[in-house]
């Protein structure tokens, strides 16, 4: 590669501001789709929880959406939204639906029957039971789904570089590196994306542990 170094540390040192900017872009490209996807998925999951046929339909549709190649999806959406953040956020959000709806429904299904019966028998209303018993008990599986959706979204978001400088995230480094034969940018973009995914996953594991102290309470752990 024409004597260019594997990783040009000097260039990195000169562009820390740019790296930070790309990071905040990537963060936005991740948090917005996962958050919106979670709210939508939670609503869908609650609606179809006790309707097996509706569940099958929703999972089939979400599965089809999931198979659309990301580049194709961005181009398709961009015809309506132009080069805006929405162009990236809409496809990235739809990709989370399959993972999140399935995970949330699976979480609700882990709630033991006797717990549900006791809650109803003691006088919880349907809404109280959902919010105070079913949802908290579904949290471990819901968090697993959120972690998976987050890591997937971080990876997919690199494709958003086609939106250009304003929204591109770490993917922007990859695209530019390929276009200009500048390996530092390629490795930087790929490395930072992976590091971000791993860090996000670790943080979510920590949050989940904080949120579910009961899940690790076992007979021995007194």
């Amino acid at each position: 590669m024409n004597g260019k170094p594997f990783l040009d540390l000097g260039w990195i040192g000169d562009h820390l501001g740019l790296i930070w900017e790309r990071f905040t872009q990537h963060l936005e490209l991740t948090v917005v789709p996962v958050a919106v996807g979670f709210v939508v998925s939670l609503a869908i999951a609650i609606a179809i929880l006790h309707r097996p046929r509706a569940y099958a339909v929703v999972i089939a549709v979400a599965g089809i959406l999931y198979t659309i190649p990301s580049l194709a999806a961005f181009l398709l959406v961009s015809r309506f939204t132009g080069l805006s953040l929405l162009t990236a956020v809409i496809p990235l959000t739809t990709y989370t639906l399959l993972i999140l709806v399935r995970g949330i429904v699976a979480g609700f299904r882990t709630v033991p029957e006797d717990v549900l019966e006791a809650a109803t028998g003691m006088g919880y209303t349907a809404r109280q039971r959902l919010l105070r018993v079913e949802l908290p008990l579904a949290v471990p599986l819901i968090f697993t789904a959120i972690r998976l959706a987050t890591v997937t979204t971080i990876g997919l978001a690199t494709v958003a570089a086609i939106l250009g400088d304003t929204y591109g995230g770490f993917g922007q480094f990859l695209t530019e590196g390929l276009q200009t034969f500048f390996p530092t940018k390629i490795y930087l973009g790929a490395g930072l994306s992976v590091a971000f995914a791993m860090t996000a996953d670790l943080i979510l594991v920590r949050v989940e542990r904080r949120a579910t102290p009961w899940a690790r309470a076992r007979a021995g752990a007194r």
Partner: protein
Amino acid sequence: MTAGHAATVEYEHVTKAYDAAALRTGAGAVNDLSLAIPAGKICVLVGPSGCGKTTSLKMVNRLIEPTSGRILLDGQDVAGRDQTELRRGIGYVIQQTGLFPHQTIEENVATVPRLLGWSAERQRSRAEELLATVGLDPAKYARRFPAQLSGGERQRVGVARALAADPPVMLMDEPFGAVDPIVRERLQNEFLRLQETLAKTILFVTHDIDEAIKIGDLVAVMQAGGIVAQFAPPAEILAHPASAFVARFVGTDRGLKRLSLFRVSSLDLQPATLAFLGEDAADVRRRAAADPLASALLVDAERRPIGWLVAAEMPRSGPIGPQHAASLSPLLDRRTTLKDAMSMLLGSDVQAGIVVDRHDAVRGLVTVGQISDWVRRSGDAVPAGDRVDAGGDEAATA
């Protein structure tokens, strides 16, 4: 804890019909059920699986709605009451406990108080009071999660939770069915002791006839199709089964089962021929020879038994000491059940149980012959005011 209000529960021609599909899933139908349960009594619904006992129970707190008929709490039709308000006023205990895994023991116990909007302080003090009531040290258990408790401990928490808002009625669906026999027996005894002070109206479902006899003031034996084959106090069911089905269900050993309902205090004790330490052997021999058992019971100055003295094996003269005594026969107290007494006596050399008071002083004797006479004579006896609870347990472990 003081006794709160208890309600009457009446089933009036209650029927629950299921379609064929529901019946296949094991839901028991109920056919024209009429029962009147007085306030403060334990009524056990017992029968084989699919007999509709659980269905009958769940119609009280309206987890299942009857097809026809009425259920009255204190004369008021439950169908006319708001479901959640009704349920918050009825204690509910189920076999798998249904404890909330994500809440601490204290939070679990305070479930209904929380739903009723009690202050946090009042919830906490109530939960602590109830944990102590069911024999769990609040300091040790309040902050734990259900997964950190044993099966028996979880069941106690389940009972405490059902009692939290001092409901006038409790529904218990096989509450001790998931624990091993030793723990079950202990929980039953504690439960009965608790009920002596609480005096709640309790509907209790089980498939175990022994549990029904032990727990129930009244027992409704149910058979397939949700029909009550007999509704009577346990002693009555054992003495006079109303049908071949009931006789078969209570078992051929119902005579022995009846023994478990009565205590030594039901019998007239036989006087024991006593010999005090240091008495002259010749005197004691003469008295022992006149005794129906040809024996005297050696006791110390406080009349505490030391051992049996058999007339033929005693020295001619000199002071009587422990070295002359054979081993003791079983020690009973007035609260020992006749079943336990019988079983202890059958295994001992001298078939006379020594009944002692709380200071271990001899009060008299009970023989196997006396117990079997009593069974023959007492076909209609009712264990009045001396219901069997932890007594036998205490006597065995004391």
